[in-house]
């Protein structure tokens, strides 16, 4: 018997030892920060579960970077609580920071080091002890596709590889939370694709917070999105929720000989009609009605020359523009 039982016992002990990894890895409540009179971040709250990728979205100057600096302990918040894996970042910064990996907007690279030396230093600074450290560095090099340049000086690498070295630095100690500030900025399209798939891969093991103002990035990579504007959260939901948001229902109608707009909006069930171009109109449906059929019938009867009838999709861009523009007005 006994051997297997002992093994089982050991495993149980092991799970007990590592079990209390809380499901919520990042929890920030009411974060505020001002620079002089300017309120950069105003009572932001966010929460992240293990294995989730959160996209922090917003125009320039929305407070994304400030929020990330606070989440990583680089900037002390003026108000609010941050817990990383249940540990208060302000009360016990060194313990909480051990669970964090951070790639700032400008990757913190020592140009006079080789990639391997640099990652070894990053692991040392995060208290990864020696036998584990060598494999940790090798893994990070492997994951970030740095194998070919591991012995080269960072200063001599291209921007794409430097960015990867920055990401490798953030994950070398296998943190629970990875925070990436605009990780794809300044990269060419191929590099962007590679970095995105790397981030998706990271999302399987870690919680990732990602800031960007590139909208397709959020759609392609993130599970949830939080849109910031002037230091406030203006939207926070899953990607699916985002697509439904404000979608209403509408179609794009293309006509070769279009009538007056008023004729279109007079059709029963049409809430609004607006021209997208000279021959294409966006037709919004009134609640609980579907005038598609009526539109087609009118087009045929009046010889408008129907060329196109497509359901209009609400893109993340529409929502973004809608949310971040209204407040400027």
């Amino acid at each position, binding site marked *: 018997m006994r051997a297997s039982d002992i093994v089982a016992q050991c495993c149980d002990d092991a799970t007990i030892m590592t079990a209390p990894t809380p499901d919520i890895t990042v929890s920030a409540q009411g974060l505020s920060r001002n620079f002089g009179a300017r309120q950069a971040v105003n009572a932001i709250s966010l929460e992240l579960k293990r294995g989730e990728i959160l996209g922090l979205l917003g125009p320039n100057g929305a407070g994304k970077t400030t929020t990330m600096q606070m989440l990583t302990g680089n*900037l002390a918040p003026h108000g609010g609580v941050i817990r990383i894996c249940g540990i208060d970042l302000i009360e016990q910064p060194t313990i909480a920071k051990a669970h964090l*990996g951070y790639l700032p907007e*400008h990757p913190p690279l*020592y140009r006079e080091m080789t990639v391997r030396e640099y990652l070894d230093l*990053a692991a040392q*600074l*995060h208290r990864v002890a020696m036998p584990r450290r060598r494999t940790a560095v090798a893994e990070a090099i492997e994951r970030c596709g740095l194998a070919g340049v591991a012995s080269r000086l960072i200063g001599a690498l291209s921007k794409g590889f430097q960015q990867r070295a920055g990401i490798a630095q953030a994950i070398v100690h296998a943190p629970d939370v990875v925070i990436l500030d605009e990780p794809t900025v300044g990269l060419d399209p191929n590099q962007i694709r590679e970095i995105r798939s790397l981030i998706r891969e990271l999302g399987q093991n870690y919680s990732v917070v990602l800031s960007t103002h590139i909208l397709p990035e959020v759609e392609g990579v993130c599970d949830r999105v939080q849109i910031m504007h002037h230091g406030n959260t203006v939207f926070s939901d899953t990607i699916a929720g985002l697509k439904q948001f404000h979608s209403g229902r509408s179609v794009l109608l293309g006509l070769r000989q279009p009538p007056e707009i008023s004729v279109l909006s007079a059709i029963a069930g049409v809430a609004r009609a607006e021209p997208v171009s000279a021959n294409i109109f966006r037709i919004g449906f009134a609640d609980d009605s579907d005038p598609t059929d009526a539109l087609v019938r009118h087009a045929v009867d009046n010889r408008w020359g129907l060329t196109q009838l497509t359901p209009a999709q609400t893109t993340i861009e529409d929502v973004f523009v809608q949310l971040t523009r209204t407040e400027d007005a």
Partner: protein
Amino acid sequence: MILTIAVKELRALFASPLAWIILTLTQLIVSYGFLQRIDNFVELQPQLAEIPNPPGVTALVVTPVYLTIADILLFTVPLLAMRLIAEERRNQTMVMLMSAPLSMIDIVLGKFCGLMLFLLLAVGIVTLMPFALLLGGHLDFGLLASLLLGIMLLAASFAAVGLYASTLTAQPIIAALIGFGLLLLMLLVGETAADGLRDRGWPVPAALAQVLSPLKNFIDTFARGVFDSSCVACSLLLTVAFLVLAIRRLDAARLGD
């Protein structure tokens, strides 16, 4: 953790030409003075023999070596210390240290220890010269120990001042200027204030002035082979004070005030 940062700083120093240039120039200047002193000593030896209790080779040849080093430190330590924090800020690598599970104390002490290791190495290399004298004579090891202790305490207080200056800015060259300015000011205070205040019967301000003048402490006591525990305390106090200032400065930067 402190050691990790210290080793990183030491390597960064040697990755730049600055460290090598400073080591070379120090060696050149000190060895020129050293050889000249030996020459003089050999010439004077017959006359010295007639004096009843003549000063030895250590006092006449070795002590000036360390006085020269003290002067060189005044110029070079601000240059060596300038990049410690300022360059990390300029290259935006400070974020890596701030995001790592380190306290500000770890960061400041690590950087200080890295610079001290370098200075220890620099002084160590130069110390080989007096040891060469053992080939043809005797050394006063008591005086030599006092000189070494004094020069390292002096280096420590200079390094702490330079490190503090480096936390004030993101421009290394500005940090060097501030550090050099502070050291010169302290030198001036030491030259004039301490003795003057004591003569007028104001012991407390005099003691403060003494704390602020590590170079004068070195010349007056350690360089004469006098081990004065109050001078040791003064140097340590100055070093700790500037390290604490540097730590507070970094904390304030995090608060963004």
